[in-house]
């Protein structure tokens, strides 16, 4: 068993690496431009270029993947020539600083031709001084300097070069000036070191948003799961006990009716009827900074929608499985042995009949995590699915990767749980 689990975990890591590569490549190949998505269509070419450079999106794809995976601080450290530190300020902002020889945290900025160093005191105050000695001048007379700026980039500043920086000024055309930041490396620790980076769309660290979203989805999916699965299993078994009976037909047809209506339609109908016409419960979820369980009335319609969708599906799988088991020779034998009916059903039939539904249910956990996006969008529910959808539409690669990784863990994890449950249902299954 232990060996089996270890094997599964190795498989999980492998899957994550492959999926992360696939997500990177798919995002890369998909049409659209992050800068325009984020900044709007009326962004000037100059703003666009600057955005891409500051986000590190002007680098080749393999380098961006590497930065995402193992971080960029090691590369920046070599360029800056000082150790780099990532600190979280009192107000909860993440900041990168360089550690100077005198053990002071420093960053720089350019003011005209002067390089200004900002020295951070332990109490958080910052002292500014000129630091022009750090310029490195090459034989062409061009001065460059690699340092850290205010916005968590390693930056190469340049001055006195022949290469002019062209700035477009609306109404008067292109204007040339020399110097300024010419290259950026956005600093991050990388996914395997626990830093999924900053969302390109919102500028907020992905780790801060994604777990709240994951929690919200878990709450919604969890409540739906707890209601749907026992109900569907119970009704499915009930229907499957006697194939063709009125009870069977009513449950199967009823369940199927709701599961064939797409969830966006069910959701909208429920909003219209229950929220707008009857005015019983809210038709949208507005939590603000509250947790979903503090406004349970808002969860009623999304959970009901999910229940109606899911119920019929699992019910019919369970029913089919039950029907098959009830027809099998060993059940007939049990009857002929003269065992009581309840004992045949509970002791012999149900355990075998549950094999198929467990697989389906475990696959559905996965579906519930990422796939409830439609229900989330219809009700404005701040869940993981919606977060991923928005990220995908905006090509927000850091957020998308982090979400994909969570879904991989959930998918592989639930399969593992399903495999373990099988061993209890069917003693013949052994993982050795």
């Amino acid at each position, binding site marked *: 068993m232990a060996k089996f689990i270890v094997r599964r975990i190795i498989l999980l890591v492998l899957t994550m690496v492959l999926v992360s590569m696939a997500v990177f490549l798919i995002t890369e190949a998909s049409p659209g431009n992050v800068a*325009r998505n984020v900044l709007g269509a009326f962004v000037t070419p100059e703003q666009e270029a600057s955005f891409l450079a500051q986000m590190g999106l002007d680098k080749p794809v393999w380098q961006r993947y590497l930065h995402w995976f193992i971080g960029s601080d090691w590369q920046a450290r070599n360029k800056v020539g000082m150790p780099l530190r990532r600190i979280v300020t009192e107000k909860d902002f993440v900041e990168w600083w360089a550690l100077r020889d005198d053990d002071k945290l420093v960053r720089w900025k350019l003011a005209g031709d002067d390089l200004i160093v900002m020295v951070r005191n332990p109490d958080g105050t910052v002292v500014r001084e000129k630091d022009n000695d750090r310029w490195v001048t090459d034989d062409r007379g061009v001065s460059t300097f690699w340092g850290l700026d205010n916005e968590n980039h390693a930056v190469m500043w340049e001055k006195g070069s022949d290469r002019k920086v062209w700035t477009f000024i609306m*109404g008067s*055309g292109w204007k040339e000036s020399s110097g300024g930041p010419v290259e950026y490396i956005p600093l991050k620790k990388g996914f395997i070191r626990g830093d999924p980076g900053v969302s390109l769309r919102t500028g907020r660290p992905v780790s801060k948003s994604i777990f709240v979203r994951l929690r919200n989805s878990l709450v919604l999916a969890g409540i739906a799961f707890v209601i749907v699965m026992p109900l569907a299993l119970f009704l499915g078994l009930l229907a499957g006990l006697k194939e063709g009976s009125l009870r069977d037909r009513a449950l199967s047809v009823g369940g199927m009716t709701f599961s064939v209506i797409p969830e966006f339609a069910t959701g909208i109908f429920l909003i219209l009827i229950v929220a707008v016409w009857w005015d019983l419960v809210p038709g949208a979820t*507005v939590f603000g*900074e509250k947790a979903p369980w503090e406004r349970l009335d808002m969860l009623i319609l999304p959970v009901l929608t999910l229940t109606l969708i899911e119920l019929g599906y699992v019910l019919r799988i369970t029913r089919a499985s039950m029907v098959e088991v009830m027809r099998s020779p060993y059940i007939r034998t049990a009857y002929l042995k003269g065992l009581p009916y309840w004992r045949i059903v509970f002791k012999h039939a149900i355990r075998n009949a549950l094999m198929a539904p467990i697989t389906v249910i475990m696959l559905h956990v996965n579906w519930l995590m990422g796939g409830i996006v439609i229900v989330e969008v219809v009700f404005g529910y701040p869940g993981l699915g919606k977060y991923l959808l928005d990220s995908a539409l905006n090509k927000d690669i850091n957020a998308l990767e982090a979400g994909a990784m969570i879904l991989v863990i959930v998918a592989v994890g639930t399969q593992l749980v399903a495999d373990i449950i099988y061993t209890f249902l069917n003693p013949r299954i052994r993982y050795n």
Partner: protein
Amino acid sequence: MKEKTRIHPTIYDLKSALANGKLSRREFLRYATLLGMSAAAASQMIGLTWPQKLWAATPKRGGVLKISQQVQKIDHPARYSWLMPSNTMRMVFEYMTLTDRDNITHPYLCEKWSASDDLKTWTFNVRKGIKFNNGDTFTADDCIFTITEWLNKDVKSSLLGLVGSYLEPTGIEKVNDYQFKLNLKRPEIAIPEHFFQYTAQVVNHRTFEGDMKKKPHGTGPYLLDTYNEGEIAIVKARKDYWQKGGDGKPLPYMDEIRFIDMGGELAPQIAALKSGEIDLIDASDNPGPQVMMAVKKDAHINVMPVATATTRVMRMRVDMKPWSDNNVRMALKLCQNREKILALAYQGEGLEGQDFHVYPKHPEYCEMPVPAYAPDKAKALLAKAGYPKGIDVNLAVGSEWTDIVRYAEVLKQDALPAGIRINIQTMPTSQYWEKWTEVDLGVTPWTHRPLGTMVPNLAYIADDQGKPVPWNESRWVDKEFTTLLDEASGTLDVDKRRKIFCKLQKIQSERGSIGIAYWMNTWMCANKRLKNVDSHPNLIFLFNEAWLEG
């Protein structure tokens, strides 16, 4: 320029223009206030009493306003690329001027301004007695710092293009702590309006370091409490705001405003508005009739309309065939059945357009008839251009702009009798923006701007080298039009200005590159418990004196 209280000589010209009936009272107010007179003084001058705000009830204090809005990334106010974050931070940071819903500009952080006769030197008086929320005193230094930030190329503000075209950093001159002067490269009358661009929020020069979230030290009525991108933003009332309410105590009336991110889908936001879970939807970046249509019959929602210069421009690339031939362009323009298009595309909620980018509520608008639908004439023009058998064209439209899609469909139908066979190419909106300046025929949304000269200066001219400017999506450059536009941009007298605009409008409608079929209304739809607010053409939030009932 010596006397600070001097009234700009043009105001007297304006007054006589008003007396002669050449200028409406609204236009007089607009121009007089632009030249530095207070709206109240200008009203007195022409014998109007400035309308005092009338409240049906005494404002109540307290309450939490809940707004659904996408809480976006912010750092530098001059770098906003959407209106929504400016609406949040508008509660914390303020502007030097304020342009109201009728395009009249009022004093705000600057209490007074005046311009030299040649319109190249502007003097601004900064209001005294204002404190930032961290206790710092607000002075001219803050205004000057803010303006230099716009002009700093490393900040990459869109204001660099706008203000930088007439002002160099060296042209800013501090007179004393409460007065500064701008010495311009060329005459400009719209400075007070530029100071109310959504990106022009004034920051504290002592503490601002490029990220307004870290040190949100503004002069506005609220304090930034929480800003979680993608989730929620909360602002809370400060106690020592400089503006006083009707009860003599400092504004604001409301205790707190919450901006809740419900995503971009409208349906859940509308449902939340209807059920009272939120009081208002921030539609500033997505104005359209959807919300209004959904709530107009709802008894507890207040629908406030306003006519705007927001429009859909059918633009034809004049450097590509067949649109290089003006006869073909004219033929397609003649195929617009404007009344029908407005009715079917936008429920009749707007004004009909006339194929020039000036709308009837711009002060310099010169009245002209709306061109009639004339397929026969169009057919004749096509024949003249060498297409006697008609012509096949592709029309690019973004599918999420549903009114544009309907516009395209009506146009397709009505252009058929003229022999123009339109193939509508719908694409996702984001994809349209990828190539909005590249397609040969497409419909592009253009947003409201308060002055008639503003859009033509962005979209229908060339730069110094004679290359069309970046937003000149149709590449149309006309020498006579450019000269006239330059002249108009430096002309204050509305009557003269309108005379120039009569020519400008005529040129653009006769040989221009665009068809404009309609101008769109917009609406602010708020829960009726939100009092003392009105809609603005840009749907920005001016909520200093807003209050909540119950």
